[in-house]
C-alpha cells in the first residue's frame, strides 16, 4: 500500500461486485429449489452443535493458515503454489457444477455429461487465467470465486452455526493478522499466491474476506429474505469502509471483524420486519 493512500467510495467497488455475484448465486439456488446438504459436522439442533461447528471452522482455517505460513517460511513456495492451486481448481470445479446444475434445474434439465463437461470447461478456463496469464481478469475471478464460495457456505450451513462461525472467524482474524500466521503470510507476499487475493487501487484483500462477507449476505437472503440481505450488505460495506479507513493508519488491518459485526447487526435488526 502506498503512503498516499486515502480511502474513497470507489474502493468498495470490488466488494460490491463480489456481493452482487453472491446474491445472483443465492438466487439460482433459491429458484432451483434443490436439496441442499448441510456441510457442518455437528447437528444444529444439538445443544453444543453450533458452537462446535464454529470451533471446527476456526481450527480448520487456523491450521490451514499455519501450514501455509510454515511452508512459505521454509521456502517451499512451489509446494504452496501446488497445494493452493489444487484447492482453488477443485473449488472452481465444484462450484461451477453446483451452480450450473441449479441453472439447468431452472431453465432446462440437461444430461449428466453436459452437467460435468461445462463445469470442466469453466475450470480449465479459470485455471488458465490464474496460472497461464498475468491478466487483471484474475482479480475479477477472485471476486466471483469469493462470492460463489460464500454463497454455498451460506446455503449449506444453518443460521446459528453461520452466525457463530462468522463471529469466531472475525475474532480469529483480528488475532491472526497481528499475532498469527495471516499477517505473516501477508508480509511474505500474498499477491504472489495467484487466486488467493486481489488488489484494487492500493487495497489488497484476501479471498477469505470476500468469502465470509458473501456467506453472511447470501445466508440472509436464503433464510430471511431480501430486506435483511440488503441490510447486511449495507452493513458489510459500511464495515469495509471503516476497515479501509483503518488501513490508512495501520497499513495492515483485519478485514473480517468490523464488516462482519456491522453486517450481522444490521441484517438481524431487519429480520423482525420480514
Amino acid at each position, binding site marked *: 500500500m502506498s503512503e498516499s493512500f486515502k480511502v474513497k467510495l470507489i474502493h468498495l467497488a470490488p466488494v460490491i461486485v463480489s456481493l452482487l455475484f453472491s446474491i445472483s448465486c443465492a438466487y439460482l439456488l433459491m429458484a432451483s429449489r434443490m*436439496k441442499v446438504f448441510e456441510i457442518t459436522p455437528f447437528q444444529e439442533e444439538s445443544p453444543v452443535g453450533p458452537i462446535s461447528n464454529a470451533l471446527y471452522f476456526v481450527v480448520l482455517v487456523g491450521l490451514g493458515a499455519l501450514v501455509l505460513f510454515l511452508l512459505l517460511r521454509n521456502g517451499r513456495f512451489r509446494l504452496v503454489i501446488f497445494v493452493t492451486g489444487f484447492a482453488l481448481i477443485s473449488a472452481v470445479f465444484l462450484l461451477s457444477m453446483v451452480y450450473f446444475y441449479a441453472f439447468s*434445474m431452472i431453465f432446462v434439465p440437461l444430461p449428466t455429461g453436459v452437467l460435468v463437461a461445462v463445469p470442466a470447461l469453466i475450470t480449465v478456463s479459470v485455471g488458465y487465467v490464474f496460472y497461464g496469464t498475468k491478466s487483471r481478469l484474475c482479480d475479477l475471478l477472485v471476486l466471483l470465486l469469493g462470492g460463489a464460495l460464500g454463497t454455498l457456505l451460506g446455503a449449506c450451513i444453518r443460521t446459528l452455526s453461520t452466525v457463530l462461525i462468522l463471529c469466531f472467524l472475525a475474532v480469529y482474524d483480528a488475532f491472526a493478522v497481528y499475532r498469527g500466521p495471516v499477517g505473516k503470510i501477508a508480509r511474505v507476499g500474498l499477491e504472489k499466491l495467484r487466486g488467493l487475493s486481489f488488489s484494487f487501487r492500493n487495497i489488497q484483500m484476501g479471498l477469505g474476506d470476500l468469502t465470509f462477507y458473501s456467506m453472511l449476505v447470501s445466508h440472509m437472503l436464503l433464510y430471511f429474505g431480501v430486506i435483511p440481505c440488503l441490510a447486511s450488505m449495507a452493513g458489510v460495506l459500511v464495515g469495509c469502509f471503516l476497515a479501509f479507513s483503518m488501513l490508512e493508519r495501520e497499513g495492515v488491518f483485519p478485514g473480517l471483524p468490523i464488516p462482519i459485526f456491522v453486517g450481522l447487526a444490521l441484517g438481524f435488526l431487519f429480520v423482525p420486519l420480514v
Partner: protein
Amino acid sequence: MKIGILRVGEIPTDVLSRLTENLNISFPEARCQLISDVLALPSQAFNNTRGQYRSDIILDLIKDYSHKTKAFSHVLGVVDVDIYVPGLNFVFGEAECPGKAALISLWRLRPEFYGKPPNFEVFIERATKEAVHELGHTLGLGHCANPFCVMYFSNSIFETDRKKSLFCNKCYSKILSLFNLAGKS
C-alpha cells in the same frame, strides 16, 4: 404383497383415491388399499425454527403402526406438511430399506409451491412417482443412476418431473430377484 396407504394428519380424499389407483397400476402384482385409520402428526416432530417436521420421527410412527397391524406387508404414510431429515433442507419422502414403512410428503409436489398455476394431474403424477420410489426402497432397492428410472434420487422437483413412474429394467430385475429369493426362503 399388500400395500396400505395411511393418512398422517389431514389429506384430501380425492388425492388418496387417485394415488391408490395409480399404485395399483404401478404394482400390478400387489393390492393397494387406503387404510381407514388416520394418525395424528406427532408434535415432537415439529421443528419451530425450521417450520418443518422431522420425517424420521413420523416414519417411526408409521413403522410402529405397520408392525401392530399385520394386514399389510407395506405401509405408505402420506403427510401434507414440509418434512426434512437432519443434514438436508427438505425431503420428498423417506423409507426403510428394506422394510415395511415408507413416507411421502405432498407439500412440495403441488405446482403452486413453485409459483405455477394449480395442476391436479401433475400433482398426482409427482405423488405417484414419490410413492413408488419410497415403496421401492421398502422392497430393498437403492437409488438408480438412470435419470428416467423411478428409483433415481430427485434432488429437485425438476428431476421428479423428468423421471418416469416406472422402474428401469435393471431395478425391475432386482425386484424380481428379491421376490424369487423371498419365495425360495
